[in-house]
């Protein structure tokens, strides 16, 4: 119930931010549609721990994002140099390893972070096996038991 209420509040905030017009009619329409969406998602069983993950360890999330941005910038710069280098120094590899996350949300965050970082793309994602395509051998070697893996496990909380 608390989860649905916070879902409702975030939907109303989303409406207000997108519309930017605060006449009584538009606000009422926004609240109305938010309620309808919450009822529909309740019927479809969507606002569960996956669709609206409010249970994550938020302190870890807030420190994870800046760290992820830093990693993205570092590896994007590396890939940029390789793309623009006349000799195109790449050594693509497929790497298979076992992630340490136990929940679906944790696995999805880990796989999405791998894909978001230029130079590595998660190809197959299963609870006990990640198959990752890496642009260079060095990027591929750094994946098993990485800091990203550790941080994603910390996000899962409880």
């Amino acid at each position: 119930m608390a989860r649905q209420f916070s879902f409702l509040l975030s939907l109303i905030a989303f409406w207000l931010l997108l519309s930017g017009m605060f006449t009584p009619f538009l606000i009422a329409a926004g609240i109305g549609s938010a309620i309808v969406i919450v009822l529909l998602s309740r019927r479809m069983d969507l606002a569960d721990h996956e669709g609206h993950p409010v249970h994550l360890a938020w302190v870890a999330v807030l420190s994870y994002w800046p760290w992820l941005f830093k990693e993205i910038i570092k590896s994007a710069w590396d890939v940029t140099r390789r793309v623009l280098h006349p000799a195109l120094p790449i050594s693509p590899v497929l790497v298979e390893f076992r992630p340490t996350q136990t929940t679906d949300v944790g696995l999805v965050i880990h796989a999405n972070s791998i894909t978001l970082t230029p130079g590595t793309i998660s190809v197959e994602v299963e609870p006990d096996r990640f198959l990752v395509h890496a642009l260079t051998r060095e990027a591929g070697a750094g994946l098993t038991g990485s800091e990203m893996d550790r941080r994603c496990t910390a996000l899962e909380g409880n």
Partner: protein
Amino acid sequence: MSTLVESISAISLLLGALFCCVGGIGLMRMPDFYTRMHAASITETLGVGLTLLGLLLLAGWTLVAVKLLMVGALVFFVSPTASHALARAAMTCRLKPVLADVGETTSKP
């Protein structure tokens, strides 16, 4: 003060546009589909990120800035999912990636 913000925004827009171009160039230069995806992900992370940061600094504290952040969050969450779906479909199709030889020495740019 405002000139400082404007120049940071100009630099950010310039870099973002250049990184977008790098993604496009990589899309042309890379040898096979999987490596091309790596090049395209530069456009989707640094290209989008820096361009939106530049626009964000131009917008200031308004609802426009909130919408720019929403566009950023959308790309941030959805584009890796699309890339993963694409790579997975290609792998299911048995599209073989070009891989480096095992014996080769490490590649430094």
